[in-house]
């Protein structure tokens, strides 16, 4: 059969090609929930984002930056506050979930609002899982805020950057330390996308945030896709995060 014969030749060609061509490094990580700006682009909820739509995990730059795009010009859309980024309504305590497509040893994770570091989580130099969740107390803040999350890698000079737009409400505590434009929307604890639930079904199209059960466990979709045989949730951490 022609295909069978073609395989070794093509494989050899693939190897040669992978030497000749700059193979993309399998990058890396971003905040999938609440959806970061790159996640919103990847989901198509914010249109016309350009290249970032296809690689929300690639916002990588030197450590110490404070921008949403890690200084990468073709991801500049992420810095554009006028793009109508939908803000996720949250309470005073927010759990951020990172989806890591390459699990670099981690120095730490940092969370900033404005110039203020609101949380640091030590990574201990070890390798994180495919997903990492941190619960951060934002009780000092209210109204619409742009949060910058940074994943500092232990064994390179680089970090990964994710900006998340939040509508913070509910939590009391300290007065708001920065002027907030206008907290027009009432705080609602519900996530922005209602997550349909049910048993994982091949052939079903899933969006980020959708929840399914499979093998007695519950999973949340972290990458939009049509479910396929072989892509059962426990097998594809790139598509499903176990809850």
């Amino acid at each position, binding site marked *: 059969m022609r*295909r*069978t014969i*073609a*395989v*070794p*030749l*093509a*494989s*050899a060609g*693939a*190897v040669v*090609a*992978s*030497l*000749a*061509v*700059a*193979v*993309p*490094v*399998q*990058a890396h990580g971003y905040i999938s929930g609440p959806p970061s700006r790159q996640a919103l682009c*990847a989901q*198509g909820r914010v249109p016309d984002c*350009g*290249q970032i*739509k*296809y*690689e929300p*995990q*690639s916002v*990588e730059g030197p450590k110490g930056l404070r921008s949403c795009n890690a200084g*990468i010009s*073709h991801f500049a859309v992420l810095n554009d506050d006028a793009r109508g980024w939908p803000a996720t309504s949250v309470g005073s305590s927010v759990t951020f979930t990172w989806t890591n*497509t*390459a*699990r*670099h040893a981690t120095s730490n994770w940092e969370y900033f609002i404005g110039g203020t570091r609101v949380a640091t989580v030590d990574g201990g130099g070890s390798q994180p899982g*495919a997903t990492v969740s941190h619960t951060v107390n934002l009780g000092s803040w209210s109204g619409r805020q742009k949060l910058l999350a940074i994943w500092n890698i232990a*064994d*390179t000079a*680089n970090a990964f950057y994710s900006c998340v737009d939040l509508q913070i409400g509910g939590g009391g505590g300290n007065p708001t330390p920065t002027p907030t434009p206008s907290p027009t929307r009432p705080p609602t604890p519900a996530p922005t996308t209602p997550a349909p639930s049910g048993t994982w079904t*091949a052939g079903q*199209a899933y969006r980020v945030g959708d929840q399914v059960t499979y093998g007695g466990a519950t999973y949340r979709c972290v*990458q*939009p*896709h*049509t479910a*396929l*045989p*072989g*892509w059962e949730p426990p*097998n*594809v*951490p*790139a*598509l499903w995060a176990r809850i």
Partner: protein
Amino acid sequence: MRTPGAVLRIAPLPLAVLLALAGCAPTVATPTGPASGTGAPPASAGFARPDPADVPFLTAMVAHHDRTRVIAVAAAGRITDAELRTLVAAVDATEADELATMRRWLAAATPPGDPAGPDAHSGHTGHDAHRPPSPTTDPDLARLSSAAAERFDAVLIDVLTAHQGRAVALARAHRPVAVGPEVRDLADRIERSRTAQIRLMAGLPAARAG
């Protein structure tokens, strides 16, 4: 930079692939212990080192996955059909994970310091990721880069169908002879998911129009 030496260490692969396809995966004496090669599955969490008989398959699949990612980069921003775009992004994400897993296994299969280590080129190279691939050295990439916008989806479906078909053939050939249960599971998942991807692509409007 790729060194000329890198070519030498990759060169034996096609033979290994041929053997694997012919169902003649090389039987290599394994000094590692009684569990190896006997079919006694090691505990899943303890899977640290693939059996040498599984290494050629894993090496071929690493090259194949690398290639998928090159195709995905070439397709970035050019896909018209939303379903195809979603599929390619999901394929890229899942294969990135599999690639990391297989490289970890292969690194464990190679003694530290072995210059033939399969992980030798997986180092972190910063923004090399964004260097454009070269259509001049690659017929598939040439087809993709020269395709007119309205034909791009059809060409991509053609290229990806052939490419994932090769993954199905590799996985189907290796699964019955796989030694490590994890490797057998991986081959099984690759065979099933790529078959489903091909079927999905065949049902898209661009495939019918092409």
